[in-house]
């Protein structure tokens, strides 16, 4: 039965945004942990560790996110392991975001001159303290714009989770279209809602960058 596109539908779409946000948060936190590990592996002084990091990044960047979602949701259930959509999404998105964030952060770490590590080492700081007190604080400032850029991509890519049953913003839009036959209005609304999520982020990123720059 076809019905009109009403304010109620808009509210449903807005409500569906919470899944978009939840997925983004999980992906960003999981991906952040994986990504930091990958970045550290890739700048390690030990060659085998660097190789592990490199292989990981190449494999993940060379495969579609959709494939990882399928592997964790359908693949594992075929071999008898039942996983909830949340677990599957958390695993797939962490793996995916980890590779990209890892690469972004590796670049930032490597942009800090070797002499900064040396200056720290010469003062008796260990590797951990060099990273924590000298390298990472400088790398973070460089890392904010590309990280936020990736976060914006991530928000949009959470729509892929619809294939394993999440009714997030895009999927809710599809469902609304199916009952209202108003694709133009519905998807325009969906697009506007994505924009409302992403635009402030890029603004915050700019402000943060400027503030960190002033405070060095």
């Amino acid at each position, binding site marked *: 039965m076809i019905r009109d596109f009403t304010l109620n539908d808009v509210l449903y779409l807005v409500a569906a945004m919470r899944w978009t946000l939840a997925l983004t948060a999980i992906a960003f936190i999981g991906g952040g942990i994986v990504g930091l590990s990958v970045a550290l592996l890739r700048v390690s002084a030990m060659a085998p560790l660097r190789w592990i990091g490199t292989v990981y990044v190449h494999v993940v960047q060379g495969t579609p996110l959709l494939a990882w979602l399928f592997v964790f949701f359908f693949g594992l259930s075929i071999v008898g392991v039942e996983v909830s959509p949340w677990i599957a999404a958390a695993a797939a998105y962490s793996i995916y975001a980890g590779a990209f964030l890892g690469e972004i952060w590796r670049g930032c770490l490597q942009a800090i001159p070797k002499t900064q590590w040396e200056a720290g080492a010469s003062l008796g*700081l260990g590797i951990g*303290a060099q990273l924590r007190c000298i390298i990472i604080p400088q790398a973070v400032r460089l890392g904010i714009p590309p990280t936020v850029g990736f976060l914006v991509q991530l928000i949009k890519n959470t729509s892929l989770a619809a294939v394993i049953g999440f009714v997030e913003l895009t999927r809710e839009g599809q469902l609304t279209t199916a009952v209202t036959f108003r694709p133009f209005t519905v998807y325009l609304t969906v697009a506007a809602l994505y924009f409302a999520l992403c635009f402030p982020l890029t603004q915050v990123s700019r402000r943060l960058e400027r503030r960190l720059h002033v405070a060095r």
Partner: protein
Amino acid sequence: MSLVELKDVVKRYGQNQVLNGVSLTVEKGEIIAIIGRSGSGKSTMLRCVNGLEPIQGGSVSFEGTKVNDPNTDLRKLRQHVGIVFQSFNLFPHLSVEKNITLAPKVVKGVAPAEARALAESVLRKVGLAEKIDAYPDQLSGGQQQRVAIARSLAMQPTLMLFDEITSALDPELVGEVLKTLEEMARDGMTMMLVTHEIGFARRVANRVVFMHHGKIWEQGPAAETLGKPATPELETFLSAVLH
């Protein structure tokens, strides 16, 4: 036991043998000026003393501890050996105070309140007490280099290494840094300094070490060695730098 002992040190970068059996001892309180042509291995030798460069042969020891032994805790050793670089290498994201107090706080566990006082005292030594809250990019090159010296001094090292610390400075800023060095010399600090300032070496150093082709080619008391070189290589080098 000498403070620093290098014995037949060999250092290679791939095929390129940079140190060809360098032997040198430094006693406590000595001031050693290291001179030589570009590429002769001066920086490399200095960096072997605090273990920044691994070596392929021979041995380096500091206060009897083998620097090139894998079991040596380099972090501990480096608390006693300060190094100042040509390019300052201050931490650009930290204020002068934080640059100076970082290592004392993290490595030695100095309390924040004491740390500020420590920063003030080493900054007074280099004549920059009023810059304690500045950031490195608000300072001139000469000031940055003096902060770098203060940062090393805050660890109360036994030995200071200086690698051409005035080479990146405008001529009018060289004097203030050399003056700081002279004051440290007067306080009895043991120093090994790579320098192109021959006049300064003659005035301040006890001993001059001339490096050539990865070897210590000639060494001796500063005035004598610089005044009457024993080898034609040093003579050539000196006439090239002095003219």
